């Protein structure tokens, strides 16, 4: 309860700060505050924010399922990497801008990206559930394997750690509705990846809150023995939850690659650049609520979008410093607004024979 209150007071403080900024910006339109405000108000920023939110929000929702079921999936970053890379690779191989079996090759690439991510999640699930591996270590392994595998494959196909360019999804424009102010360009004139994100967030919420599977996921993470004695196979529930995390992360990675990037740089931290870890931060911040995670991803992606736009205005923004804001925020949230309580049995393999 106290956690909730302090979260709320933090939100109020943020709102006040925002109001002051807006007021200052309106009064002094030529100051840097005014510029920030105009960036904040620009449709371009909003659209960019939505697209940048795709990998974060979807990976976060996937992570919620896995962790709620008791399997901490710290390998989300790896899932984003493999899905983004394979989506680009397949689209490129099939031919960008062309169609196969009446479906744009971008969609084939998208589908393969999701499948590859799901297969990785299956591997991770088997390692954690079947062989009772330490989940943190196995998750790190998934990340490191993906980090090596994407540039490895890229070099074979493209002779470089970076892939060729396949362009991005065309925006889907809904006639009439797209003319509606604000909502129009936000929701009715945007990429399919954004639609996927919005639909997935609602679907994720519904699945968790309204279906029996959602109940089982919660019980599996809080008290697996209770679920087991109620006659539900804990392992199956956990497998399903981890596979779902793979599907959601795959939607995020493939959607990000084909909706925003159009190409994939596999060097260093890759183009994913830690968004999988921000996703973990986001769902902890949102206390495992899918819609909350969506909102949180807007916050972090918005920061990124504003920072990018400010640079185009010629401001010498300390980019690197701004990039650290999501991470610092997460630490502050963890410390100040109470311990986001992990599910009781998170991180432990379930052994039915143990009392």
């Amino acid at each position: 309860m106290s956690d909730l209150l302090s979260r709320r007071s933090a939100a109020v403080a943020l709102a006040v700060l925002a109001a002051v900024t807006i007021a200052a910006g309106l009064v002094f339109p030529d100051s840097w505050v005014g510029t920030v405000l105009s960036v904040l108000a620009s449709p371009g920023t909003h659209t960019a924010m939505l697209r940048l939110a795709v990998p974060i929000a979807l990976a976060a929702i996937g992570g919620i399922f896995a962790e709620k079921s008791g399997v901490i999936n710290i390998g989300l970053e790896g899932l984003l990497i493999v899905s983004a890379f394979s989506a680009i690779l397949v689209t490129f191989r099939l031919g960008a801008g062309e169609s196969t079996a009446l479906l744009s090759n971008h969609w084939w690439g998208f589908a393969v990206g999701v499948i590859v991510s799901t297969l990785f999640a299956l591997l991770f699930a088997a390692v954690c559930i079947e062989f009772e591996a330490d989940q943190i270590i196995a998750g790190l392994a998934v990340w490191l394997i993906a980090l090596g595998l994407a540039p490895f494959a890229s070099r074979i196909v493209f002779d470089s750690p970076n892939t060729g360019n396949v362009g991005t999804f065309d925006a889907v424009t809904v006639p009439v509705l797209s003319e509606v102010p604000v909502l129009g360009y936000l929701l009715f004139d945007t990429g399919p990846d954004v639609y996927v994100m919005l639909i997935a967030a609602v679907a994720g919420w519904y699945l968790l809150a309204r279906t029996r599977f959602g109940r089982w996921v919660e019980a599996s993470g809080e008290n697996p023995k209770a679920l087991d004695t109620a006659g539900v196979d804990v392992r199956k529930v956990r497998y399903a939850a981890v596979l779902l995390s793979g599907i959601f992360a795959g939607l995020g990675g493939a959607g990000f690659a084909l909706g925003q990037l159009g190409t994939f740089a596999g060097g260093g931290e890759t183009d994913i650049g830690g968004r999988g870890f921000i996703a973990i931060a986001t769902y902890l911040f949102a206390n495992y609520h899918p819609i909350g995670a969506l909102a949180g991803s807007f916050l972090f992606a918005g920061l990124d979008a504003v920072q990018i736009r400010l640079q185009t205005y010629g401001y010498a923004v300390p980019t690197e410093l701004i990039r650290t804001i999501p991470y610092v925020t997460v630490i502050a949230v963890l410390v100040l607004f109470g311990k986001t309580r992990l599910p009781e049995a998170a991180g432990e393999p379930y052994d039915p024979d143990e009392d």
Partner: protein
Amino acid sequence: MRDRIEGLIGRLVRASIVERVAIAAAALVAAVVVGGVLVFVSGGFASCASGLDLAGWTFCYNPMQVYYELFLGALGHPLEGGWHVHNFSLATTLRETTLLAFAGLSVAVAFRAGLFNIGTQGQLVVGGLLTAVTVLFAARFVPGGAVGTLVLVPLGVLAGAVGGGFYGAIPGALKAYGGANEVITTIMLNFVAVGVTSTLLSWRFQDPESANPQTRAVPEYAEIPTIPVIGYSPRLDFSLLALGFAVALMVGLAWMLARTSFGYELRVSGVQPEAARYGGVAEKRMTVASMTLSGALGGIAGAFWVLMQHGRWLENVPSLGFDGIAVSILAGNNPLGVGAAAFLFGVLSSGGRSINTATDVPPELVGVVSGLIILFVAMPEFFRMIGRQFLDVDEEPGRGTGGGADE
């Protein structure tokens, strides 16, 4: 007779240290096999002039050749003529071994205290920058030559330890006094370290004569000295003294864990925090202390990376800290085991370069193989199952906590 041998092997398989070594070895073999399959299969998608033709499909890569280059290339091809111990590849391998040993010890110490320090990378970044900055600053007041070496090298290493220790103490304190999970905070702090150090670099410490994001070079006499005659040439960026220091740290940490009150308390905290509290361990202070020690070791890795390899701090820091996690896990978080594991990963790292020059296989293979090793080490149950299948070992003996006989 066969029964007796199987019984003996079975008992050995159960014995914990032997089991751990066996599992590490099995994980290595499994990772190499899977990596080999990956190499072979991906060769089917590469294009080449000549390869192995199977059913009309050309496979360009020969896994055996790749592993030959990986493992022997890292040592400078000892089986071929003209081999000399002071070769470039072996120097690279040993340099990586040294740096990975520090990073591995950093992770291992935290692990033994029950803390998962994923932040060694960040601690290394921060410690390394502080080393470079401190040495650059102090060099103004210190004469050159041997005196400079004697003053600046220990000072630089100390600065790295302080910087890394401080940066490790942060997640320790956040956990002890704020209840923040160290896995999450250390991951976050890695990103923060990158952002803050590169901001600091462009703000103050950038080398004005270079377009690369890096600090100015420290004076040559402030780099880790090499031993004349028997040591490696300074051009190879490796010093036996550094390796000796790493070995000394390994032994020292092993001794500390086994023999001292602090080490005992750290180990109890790691396996059973409630028992540590009961036994009078000040848990919060122990959390901060072990994270500080862990961070300091990470900072030392950064210091040696600066003072031995580059002579300056570069914004593009290699992922030694993450590889340190792999080293520590493979070593079962045992300080002495860290030496062997660090050498293995040193071979992988250096062998990656041989692969790049001698074959067409992308050197990123090494990253995949390291990831696979971690994955396999993380699942000892997998190898136990296989072991049981082949050896027909009895189930584990009943433990006090297990079974249903306690009600």
